[in-house]
C-alpha cells in the first residue's frame, strides 16, 4: 500500500537532550493511524518537524513524497496537509467568520459544504470574536478549519482535548468520514478509548524512540497476558523468549506480557512444570502502560 508519511532516522536534539531519536515511521495512505506516547515522549516535536516548524537535527522525512526540510516542499506539504495543534490557539482578535475567510483563501479545494455542515453541527456563531469562545468552541473551530481544507492528509494533535463526550463523538465521526472519503489521518491522543474506536494502526513512541508499530487488530489479537503458577523457583530469564515484553515474578506466580509467540511462552511454562497457565487478552490501555513501563 502507498506510504503517505515516511521518516528515516528522524532525530531532534535540544543541546544534549534527544527529544526524538532515530525515528522510523510509516503511515499508509487511507489509514487512521494513532500516535501514542506519554507527555514529553516526543510526539509534538515530531509533528512540528513534519510541518516545517522545527528542523530535524538528523535524518529525513517525506510527506506525500515531499521533503519536510526543504522550504518549497514544506509549503506544498502544508497545501495538502491539514494540521491541528495540541493547544488550538487561534487569532483571538478575529471573528469566526473572519478566520474562516482568512484560512479558506489558502486552500483552493476548500469544502464549503462541509464548512456549513460543521458550523451548524458545532453551533459556532459566525460573528463572535474568537477570544469570546469557550475552550470547547475553539477546539471545534480549529477542527472545522482543518477538516474543510480538502486535504489528503490530516495531522491532528489531541483533536478531542477539551471537548465534552457529545462533541467528542461528533469529531470522531467526522474523522472517520474523512477517512471514508479517502483521506489519511495521523492523530495523537491520550484517550485510549478513542484510539480503539477509530484507529486501524498504532504507533507508540517513548523517550523519542518508536516502541510499537502495528495494526490495531494485530495488537488486539496477539497481545496477551499469560499467568502461570509454577511450583519451583523461577527467574525472569527463564522466559527470555521472542515476544515476551515483560515478566513479573511473585513467588510461584509468573505474569507475562506477550506481544506475540504466545504458544511458545505457554510451552515454556509447561516445560517448567507449571501447575496452571492462563491466557487473557489485554486492552490497548494495558498494552500502552506495559510498553511504557517496560522501558522506564
Amino acid at each position, binding site marked *: 500500500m502507498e506510504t503517505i508519511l515516511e521518516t528515516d532516522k528522524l532525530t531532534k536534539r535540544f543541546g544534549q537532550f534527544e527529544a526524538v531519536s532515530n525515528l522510523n515511521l510509516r503511515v499508509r495512505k487511507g489509514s487512521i493511524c494513532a500516535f501514542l506516547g506519554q507527555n514529553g515522549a516526543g510526539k509534538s516535536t515530531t509533528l512540528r518537524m513534519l510541518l516545517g*516548524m522545527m528542523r530535524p537535527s538528523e535524518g529525513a522525512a517525506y510527506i506525500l513524497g515531499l521533503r519536510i526540510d526543504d*522550504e518549497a516542499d514544506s*509549503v506544498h506539504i502544508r497545501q495538502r496537509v491539514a494540521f491541528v*495543534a495540541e493547544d488550538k*490557539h*487561534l487569532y483571538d482578535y478575529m471573528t469566526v467568520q473572519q478566520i474562516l475567510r482568512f484560512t479558506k483563501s*489558502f*486552500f483552493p479545494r476548500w469544502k464549503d459544504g462541509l464548512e456549513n455542515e460543521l458550523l451548524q453541527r458545532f453551533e459556532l456563531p459566525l460573528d463572535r470574536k474568537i477570544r469570546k469562545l469557550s475552550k470547547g468552541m475553539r477546539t471545534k473551530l480549529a477542527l472545522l478549519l482543518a477538516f474543510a481544507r480538502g486535504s489528503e492528509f490530516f495531522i491532528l494533535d489531541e483533536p478531542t482535548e477539551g471537548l465534552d463526550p457529545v462533541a467528542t463523538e461528533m469529531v470522531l465521526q467526522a474523522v472517520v468520514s474523512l477517512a471514508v472519503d479517502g483521506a489519511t489521518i495521523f492523530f495523537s491522543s491520550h484517550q485510549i478509548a478513542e484510539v480503539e474506536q477509530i484507529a486501524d494502526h498504532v504507533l507508540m513512541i517513548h523517550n523519542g524512540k518508536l516502541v510499537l508499530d502495528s495494526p490495531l487488530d494485530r495488537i488486539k489479537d496477539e497481545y496477551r497476558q499469560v499467568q502461570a503458577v509454577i511450583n519451583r523457583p523461577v527467574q525472569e530469564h527463564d522466559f527470555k523468549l521472542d515476544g515476551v515484553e515483560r515478566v513479573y515474578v511473585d513467588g510461584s506466580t509468573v505474569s507475562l506480557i506477550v506481544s506475540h509467540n504466545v504458544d511458545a511462552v505457554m510451552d515454556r511454562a509447561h516445560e517448567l512444570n507449571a501447575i496452571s497457565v492462563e491466557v487473557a487478552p489485554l486492552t490497548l490501555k494495558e498494552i500502552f502502560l506495559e510498553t511504557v513501563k517496560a522501558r522506564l
Partner: protein
Amino acid sequence: MLFYKAWVESRSRFIFGAVALTALSVLFVRLHPILIPQWQVALQDPHAIKPQWLPLGVSDYRFYVWHFLFDFRLQNLWVLFAIVLSFGGLLREDANGTAVYSLSLPVTRNRWMISRVLIAFLETSLLSCVPALVVPIASVSVGQSYPIGQGFAHGLLMAGVGSVFVGLAALLSLVLRGEYTPLVVTVATLAVPYLVLQEWARRVSWARKIDIAHVMAGPWLLTWGSVPWLAITGVCLLTMLSLGLAARQGRRLEF
C-alpha cells in the same frame, strides 16, 4: 489575505497613532496665536535668552509648523508609532500561542514577514500624511494658511527616511521572544538613541551629520532640489539590510 491579517492585527494601533498625530498637530497650530505675542515680547527684550530660530519662528508660520512638528514633537511621535506598528510577527505569535496555526498554513516565513512589513510601511506612510491634511485645515481656525504640498513633502520625507525604524523594528521583532517585552526593548534600543542624538545635534552642529531626525525633517522649505537624496539612499540601504537580516533570522527560527 496576509495583508488583511496584518491590517486587522495593527489597525487599533494605527487608529490610535492617527488620533495622536492629529491631536498633536492641532495642539501646535492652536498654540501659535498664544506663543507668538510672548515671543515678540522676548525679541524686544535685550536681556531675554533668544534661540537663533526665534525671529523666523515669529515671522514665518511655515517655519513655525516645520520647527515644532516635522523637526520636533510630531516627528518624535511618528517614530514611536513607526516602531509600535512594526512590532509583531511570528515570535510574538509564538508568545501568545498562534504561531503554530500560522505556520501550518502554506505560506513561507518570508511572505509572513513581507506582508507585515509592507503593511507597517503603508500605515506609517499614511500617518506621515496626517499632518499634511490636518495642519492646513486647523490653520484656518487661527487665521493662518499652510501649503498642503509642503505638508505632504515633509510627511513623505519623514516616512521615507524613517522607514529605517520599520526595518530595524522588524528585525528586532524576529530576535526578541515574548509578547510585550520585545516592544519595550525595541523602543529602548531605537527610540532612546534617536532622541538623545536629536537633542545632542541641537547643541553640537557637527552631530547633525549623523542625526537621523535632522534628515527626516529636511530643510524647512522643502523643494525638489533640497531633498537629501544621498541620505535617503543610505537609509534605504540600511532598511534593506535590516529586512534581509530579518528574513534570514526568520528562516532560522524554530517553533
